[in-house]
């Protein structure tokens, strides 16, 4: 399985990639900063991460999940720093032979990220 993990302070550019010959399903997820947080309007969220540890954790999670959900490729991009409302904070792409694997992998990766991967958001007051 090919795994690309990036943390970047820049606006996320959704990568355009041709799927492999045996790939039948591509699932993409965009987490987007909403205009309200806990009912209050906000302008942006601030994300910080421990990128090298986050990458290690993500690789562990990925190899665990890959044993059950056989996937060909994962792209994981998390933006850090200030992310204005309407912009992408997290982009995921999972390529697999079948859709069940791609959906399963993608959803479980997000669930596990939200438990164990050292990334934090705070409401930006700037």
């Amino acid at each position, binding site marked *: 399985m090919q795994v690309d993990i990036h943390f970047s302070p820049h606006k996320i550019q959704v990568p355009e990639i041709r799927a492999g010959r045996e790939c039948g399903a591509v699932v993409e997820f965009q*987490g987007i900063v909403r205009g309200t947080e806990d009912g209050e309007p906000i302008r942006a969220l601030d*994300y*910080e*991460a*421990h990128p*090298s*540890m*986050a990458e*290690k954790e993500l690789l562990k999670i990925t190899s665990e999940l890959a044993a059950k959900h056989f996937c060909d490729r994962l792209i994981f991009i*998390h933006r850090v720093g200030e992310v204005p409302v309407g912009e992408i*904070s*997290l982009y995921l792409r999972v390529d697999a032979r079948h859709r069940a694997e791609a959906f399963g992998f993608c959803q479980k990766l*997000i669930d596990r*990220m*939200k*438990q*164990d*991967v*050292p*990334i*934090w*958001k*705070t409401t930006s007051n700037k």
Partner: protein
Amino acid sequence: MKNKITVLAFSTAKQVMGFSQQMVECRPDDTAESLINRLVPQARQRCGSARVALDEEFAEWSDPVAGHQELAIIPPVSGG
């Protein structure tokens, strides 16, 4: 020769510790908890449900820090 370790504090732990990164001297019998409590009184309690990582691996607060280069205070994560 003194042993030194880099302490990283993220998110809410940054407010408790007053820094995001600091190089700290550690004693041979220091645990993760004793080390940060010496930097800030009751730091461990004040960091609430934060976990600790030693050299980028989750560890126990009672683990000795000797031999490690980095201690990271990991408050509940919220990526996404």
